[in-house]
């Protein structure tokens, strides 16, 4: 039997993908923007988490729990890249998506890890 699934456009109506499980600390933003743009490397188990654990310790390894990342720093790092992190183009993360991601990280940052 032939099983075909209708045409699917990525990015359309996919809220809930990558939804963060309850964690002790601030959860990762449960949006498609964050999950696809950042979460593949910056959520638990991701490569950037390992790099940041080695460099800055486990406490600072999850960006959504960092208290010392000003919005402008996030924007600069995303657009310029940093270390092994490649710069991301406006196709990968649009300015509007980046603004939304930064806004999502803001409250998490406020109640994030201890200083």
């Amino acid at each position, binding site marked *: *039997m*032939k*099983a*075909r*699934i209708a*045409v*699917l*456009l*990525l*990015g359309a109506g*996919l809220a809930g*993908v990558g939804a963060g499980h309850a964690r002790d600390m601030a959860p990762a933003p449960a949006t498609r923007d964050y999950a*696809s743009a950042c979460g*593949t*490397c910056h959520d638990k*188990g*991701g*490569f*950037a988490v*390992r*790099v940041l654990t*080695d*460099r800055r310790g486990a406490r600072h390894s999850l960006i959504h729990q960092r208290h010392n990342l000003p919005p402008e720093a996030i924007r600069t790092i995303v*657009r*310029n*890249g*940093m*270390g*092994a*992190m*490649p*710069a*991301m*183009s*406006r*196709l*990968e993360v649009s300015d509007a998506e980046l603004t939304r991601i930064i806004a999502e990280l803001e409250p998490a940052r406020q109640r994030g890890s201890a200083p």
Partner: protein
Amino acid sequence: MPEIERPAVSQGAMRALANEIGSEWVLTGEEDLIPYHDAYGFTPGDPHVPGGAVAPRDTDELRAVLRIANEHRLPLWPVSRGKNYGYGGAAPCMAGTLVLDLGRMRAITDVDVARGVVVVEPGVGFFDLFDFLEREKIPLWASMPGNSLGSVLGNALEYGLGYGPQGDRAASLVGMEVMLPDGALIRTGMGAMDASPCWNLFPYSYGPSWDRLFMQSSFGVVTRAGVWLTPEPEEVLSLSMELPNEADIGWVVEALAPLCLRGVIQGPVNIGNFMRIVMGSGRRAEWADGKHAIPDARHAEIMADFKLGWWGLHLSFYGEPDLNRARARVVSEAIARHTTQQFATSSWKRGDPRPQAPSHGVPISFPLRIANWISPNGGHLGFSPVLPPDRQAIEQQISRSRALFRQHDFDFYGGVTLGQRHVNVVNMLAYDRADADMTGRADRLFRALMDDAKTRGFGEYRSHLSYMDDVARTYDFGGHALHRLNSWMKDAIDPNGILAPGKQGIWPAHLREGRP
């Protein structure tokens, strides 16, 4: 290398592009173009600086872009997602070329679950495909590469090799849709027939096969293609063995090559040296001074620290448990003729959580970290000649590679990938992009590896932008007869030379002057 004239991108052309596809998708600002530079490049003056980027949404917009490019003789460098780090990323070969970023064409347009096929557009990344298959609960696995940020289609078009039964990704790409430089849209294979249900099921059709002409090529823009996936196996049975000695690679190739040939082993076998793991650790300063190679005398201590052998042999079998066990037994018997060591085994069964590993069809990005091995401003470059799967040839290649790495003072990141009838020997070198002494040594080492391989008839099958002319020149049968055919074809199919000038050493007529 001759001085490359940097073509100015005309304002009229840019205005025309903005009119057709919207000004927000014609990128020219300094910050907009950062992702289109070669992040690992080191040549002073950046010979691969992009002139801008343009990102059509669909084939109609792509056709408009090609028309404007033809009118203005605007060179375009198509990229799917531009993540081929170590080979130039999204950057064009010729300075000033406009990057044609296909990342917005990001649909999975069709899935045939029963036959294990998806049809993807260029912007679909390995993470996208994985997320889609998981979300829709489709029991199919894609072959994943080490750096999974890239495009499924782009990786296959560049002859990417990787894990799993469909690890020869170019061979798994079946049935293409291609836009030619004049805007004509064609489908290859059975897709040349309207409404064929077999477009992505049979790799040939009637008459010449054009598919390979569009791989590593500047003859057209591939806008979608079928990708063969592996049906979710009942079980994955994995065997691992850490081989203590550098010299062990010879008998491993001798033992496994016949099993790859006979299909006992499914897909390519990737055997890496301990440095492949260690270089992702970020701990270099513990063992070496500055920009010099870690001395061989410290290797034993590092291997002990990481519990690694000189080579790591990892095999996986996919399918019915009985078949997997039979395959594992044949492999173990072949290995037992050379060592008393036993394989460590592990298995994954359908329904278990998937390990975060490309061998199990799960994307990863961790290998990107290797770029940071030498410094936060690092990069890497690879040379991977194709050899016959012959013990002596591999032993001698590793020994000569090691000598050249020592001579140029680089850590040897080495790998051996066995295919059904060939071997790729991966030689990767990591450097600090800002250190002129080190990048000079990297360039000399790359050229020494290439020249050495050429004297034995071994050629590279992919390369960084800066070496495309050099590698193309090593393919010299009949006084470079294939190069002449490629040039003839380029002039016929792309008379204005708008697509990817310089890619794989192929230049349009007006830029060919003065090149050997």
